[in-house]
């Protein structure tokens, strides 16, 4: 079991309020991703759940038990740190065995679990090395190994891939997702990278300045962002925002439209503009367009689109994909 619920969790360092009050229910076996810009309090929230920080007020329950005053060790959670936090003086074997030794698991059992974990993680031949002799990816796997042998109620990951190079990052991403599928254990995963969030999560928690902006599946967030912040944060390239006269015509303070929801037409579009820049990625082309009334827009066009800077084009938004926001930045019902 591994349900976790946060009730009015508040955290302040001295007078500085980092998390004003967070409510969240995490179901057993769920893959939850905390996403938000750097400095928004993701790590702090994760560390509150881990018990590495005290809440200023509020309550955290794991499997229905109040763990507010339970030390990290007693919460039966495992954490994978951004810096891996391996024990530099211990071999890989001992690093993985450490939590088991602390739990006084017997020797034979420990051996079995290490062997099993090493096999899953492809670490068998490195068991007797020290962390210093491993590559970044291998260290990452040791850190994961150390977490899985304990069979915790939930895994906490704090930006575990941010120190890896791009190719390795994609591999590890897939690996962690498979791990989640096999273990079916609750995982909370912190990242500032919305692509990671979109590809991995069952549900995403979007944080902004310590406040939970929206919780939902990746598609929900993509299709129905509840605020300007979520709309802008989820999706790449970013959603275009237009305010002023154009927005007022639709009874909104701001309207938003994603680059992939604007069609390029030869004429008679809603907005006319000039191509400033064309990024040809092969599969797609992203056009940066100066559309006089609507301001600068990014538009996705097919890969074979032949427009070049200076060309005049006309743009037509897919109407049921228009998002409307009020002056407070909250989404308005589709109109």
């Amino acid at each position, binding site marked *: 079991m591994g349900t976790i619920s946060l009730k009015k969790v508040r955290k302040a360092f001295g007078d500085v309020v980092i998390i004003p009050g967070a409510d969240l229910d995490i179901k057993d076996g769920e893959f939850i991703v905390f996403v938000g810009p750097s400095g928004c309090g993701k790590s702090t929230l994760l560390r509150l759940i881990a018990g*590495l920080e005290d809440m200023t007020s509020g309550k955290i329950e794991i499997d229905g038990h109040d763990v507010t005053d339970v*030390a990290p060790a007693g919460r039966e959670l495992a954490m994978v740190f951004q810096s891996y936090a*391996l024990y530099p003086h211990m071999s890989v074997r001992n690093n993985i065995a450490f939590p088991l030794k602390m739990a006084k698991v017997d020797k034979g059992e420990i051996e079995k679990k290490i062997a099993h974990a090493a096999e899953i993680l492809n670490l068998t031949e490195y068991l007797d090395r020290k962390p210093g002799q491993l590559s970044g990816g291998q260290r990452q796997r040791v850190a994961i190994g150390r977490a899985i042998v304990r069979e915790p109620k939930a895994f906490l990951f704090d930006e575990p891939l941010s120190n890896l190079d791009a190719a390795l990052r994609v591999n590890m991403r897939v690996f962690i997702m498979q791990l989640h599928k096999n273990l079916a254990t609750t995982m909370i995963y912190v990242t500032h990278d919305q692509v990671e969030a979109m590809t991995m999560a069952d549900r995403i928690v979007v944080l902004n300045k310590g406040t939970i902006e929206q919780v939902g599946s990746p598609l929900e967030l993509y299709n129905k962002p509840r605020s300007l912040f979520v709309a802008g944060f989820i999706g790449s390239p970013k959603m275009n925002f237009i305010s002023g006269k154009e927005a007022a015509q639709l009874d909104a303070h701001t309207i938003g439209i994603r680059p992939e929801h604007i069609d390029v037409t030869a004429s008679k579009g809603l907005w006319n503009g000039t191509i400033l820049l064309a990024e040809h990625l092969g599969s797609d082309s992203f056009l940066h367009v100066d559309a006089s009334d609507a301001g600068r827009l990014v538009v996705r066009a097919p890969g074979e689109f032949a427009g070049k800077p200076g060309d005049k084009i006309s743009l037509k938004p897919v109407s049921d994909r228009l998002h409307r926001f009020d002056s407070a930045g909250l989404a308005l019902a589709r109109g």
Partner: protein
Amino acid sequence: MARKQSTRRTIVLTAVAWTIGILLFFPIFWTAVAAFKTESDAYTLPQNFLTTPWTLENFGIVQERSDYLRYIFNTSVIVILSTLLGLLLAIPAAWSMAFAPQAEATSKLSGWTWLAIILASLVICFLGLYFTDWKPANAFVGIVLLLIFVVPASLWAWTRRTHDGLLWMLSTKMMPPAGALIPIYLIFNRNGLVFKDWGWINLSDYNIMDSFWGMVPLMTLLNLPIIIWMLFTYFKEIPVGILEAARMDGASLWNELARVLTPMALPGIASTCLLNLILSWNEAFWSLNLTNKYAAPLSFFISEYSSPEGQFWAKLSAASIMAIAPILVIGWFSQKQLVRGLTFGAVK
């Protein structure tokens, strides 16, 4: 990138540096030479140190007459036990200050309030001593009265924010021994000059003057501030995340300290031990004042050669060489690591 320099300049520098180095080292060299001469040759050393024969006899005689091995044993016991005891106290303290620092004082009382409390308790303590007895002859009364003062003072020290606590600890190292000599001497004294009357227990047979029971804790306390300070600076270099990982992995405080922190900080702990070793090996003030036989260390042993009738120079030299050789070698090897401790970290 090193700057280019002419060979001539290097030669001059080499000559000057070696001359100064040899001059500074010369007294030690000279002692070593005298140690290998016969007693009568030692007196005429300046005239003919090259022509007189060399001998090893002094070392044997020193051992035979003055029991050198007993003194080096005493020194070793004091140095090693006090270092271990010091680490036992200092590792948790330094851990606490490095990883669970207190940004604010934990007591709400202001500095002036504390000062008033401490001064008042000191006055009460003195009045008590004054009215019960002129000197704290009755141990129980004396100790209770002293506690009246020491408890609030310790509480004050204990509730400081971490930085101030650390500085307070360092400042105890700066207290002059002359200021502590009298009470320590009286408390340690063979015949129990203060605290001698323990009522139904006759403690006058169990004194701590000239015993390891006195010298080991004393040496620990003398160097504890430096040990804590050095360990603190080394611990600060260890990433907190690793200790947090241990906490997540279910390690108790003991396991966190013994299995994670201590092995990781081993190089720093080793340098700390070395400095402590050097300082306590060479300690002279308390050794000369509080020992004379059973627990007397090497510095006392050497001072015995100062009496005029004991002027056997070759033997004095042999004894000196035996007393300084171990620590000199250790000093040579650890000189670079010592700077941190020798400056209280005030020089980086």
